[in-house]
């Protein structure tokens, strides 16, 4: 019977230790997760912000960034498309209160390394800055639009444009006023 007792004791000791460690790290983990998100958002906003408000809707999640004076400085929205070369592309799109694009960050994609994955490279992303739903023909140049497609990765480029449009439209719905200004 000794083996069983020992195994059980080892199990109980391990479990206790783990429970303690888990308890200690629960807080830091939650904070770390929050920080990750914040960092991501900080990356797409060209300015520092003070606080962040997370809004979860049925369709997606978005974040409002406020400055010290509690005025909205930027909105970040999670948007996605299934039309990538290898399916799903998720991006975090940041716009200013007047619904101009500030930048975006790719959260998830499976595009071909070396081709489609350039959608996450600054060179491609740069061109989106300052665009709005209205001031841009959201098609790729090939199809007569304004977006410079990546060579040999038109599909990925189109997909990103689509996701961006989807995000912009969503924000327009949420903040009908600000865009009217």
């Amino acid at each position: 019977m000794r083996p069983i007792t020992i195994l059980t004791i080892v199990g109980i000791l391990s479990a206790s230790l783990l429970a303690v460690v888990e308890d200690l790290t629960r807080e830091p983990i939650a904070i770390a997760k929050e920080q990750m998100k914040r960092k991501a958002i900080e990356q797409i906003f060209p300015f520092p912000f003070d606080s962040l408000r997370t809004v979860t809707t049925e369709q997606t999640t978005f974040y409002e960034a406020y400055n010290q004076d509690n005025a909205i400085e930027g909105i970040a929205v999670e948007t996605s498309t299934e039309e990538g070369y290898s399916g799903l592309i998720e991006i975090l799109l940041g716009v200013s209160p007047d619904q101009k694009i500030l930048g975006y960050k790719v959260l998830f994609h499976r595009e071909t390394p070396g081709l489609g994955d350039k959608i996450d490279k600054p060179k491609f992303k740069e061109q989106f800055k300052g665009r709005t739903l209205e001031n841009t023909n959201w098609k790729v140049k090939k199809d007569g639009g304004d977006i410079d497609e990546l060579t040999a990765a038109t599909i990925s480029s189109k997909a990103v444009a689509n996701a961006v449009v989807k995000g912009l439209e969503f924000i327009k719905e949420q903040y009908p006023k600000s865009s009217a200004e």
Partner: protein
Amino acid sequence: MISEAFIPAVASLGSVALTLGLIIFYVSKKFHVEEDPMVTILNDTLPGVNCGACGYPSCGQFAEVLVETKDSSMTCPVGGTDLAEKLGDTLGITMAEPKPITAVVLCQGDNDTARETAEYLGIQDCWAATQTYVGPKQCRYSCVGLGSCIAFCDFGAMRLENGLIIIDKDRCTGCEACIPACPTGVIVMQEKKAERYVIACNSHDKGAATKKACDAGCIACQKCVKVCDDDAIVIENFLAKIIQEKCTSCGKCIEVCPTKVNCILLEEDLKEAKQKKAS
């Protein structure tokens, strides 16, 4: 300080561990299989080269049989005396000590001494050559000199020098793996001794024929037989042979042998003898 996860964590892991422990305990009792741990111990002690010198196909088999029979006469030539002691200690019996033996090539016909036949261009292997014709050396009893046996030696004790196999006595464990590897049967086993005399020739041709084929061959001239005080040399079928039990290693036979080099075994001696012959 105790977190809310503490109790469920401890309880669940504890109970899973307990359950599994119980199951294992029960099952291992129910399905217990008797096994002799001695076999494993012996197996670890043995050299593990599975050379077959002991007469069993593998070291494991040797261990099994040894544990079963406790036969103290079983020996592992490779492990030698040390191993015999260890095995004996483990089993609590006194093991017979293997006589150290070594392989000996009964031929001195290298590229300088043995005369050639037609050039051989087939597969470079002693068996392939002898299966094609008498072989690249005129003497059909000779070491063919293509080294087929080398690969069979697990201990790296064989090497080819100037068309003749040389056996490194220090490495040779007497495992006998090379014997079936040789088509002309020119390798034999002999007890390891510090000084030992062997007629290192395998030719059963008559003297004249041997002489024609090789400078180093035994021509059955009888001189050594006459000079040997211990009657340790006999001539069988045109080839002299030293009876090891009788030989006292006096070395007289070397002195009288007209071909000078055919009675040696120690490698150092062999070189010396060659020099002697040259001078």
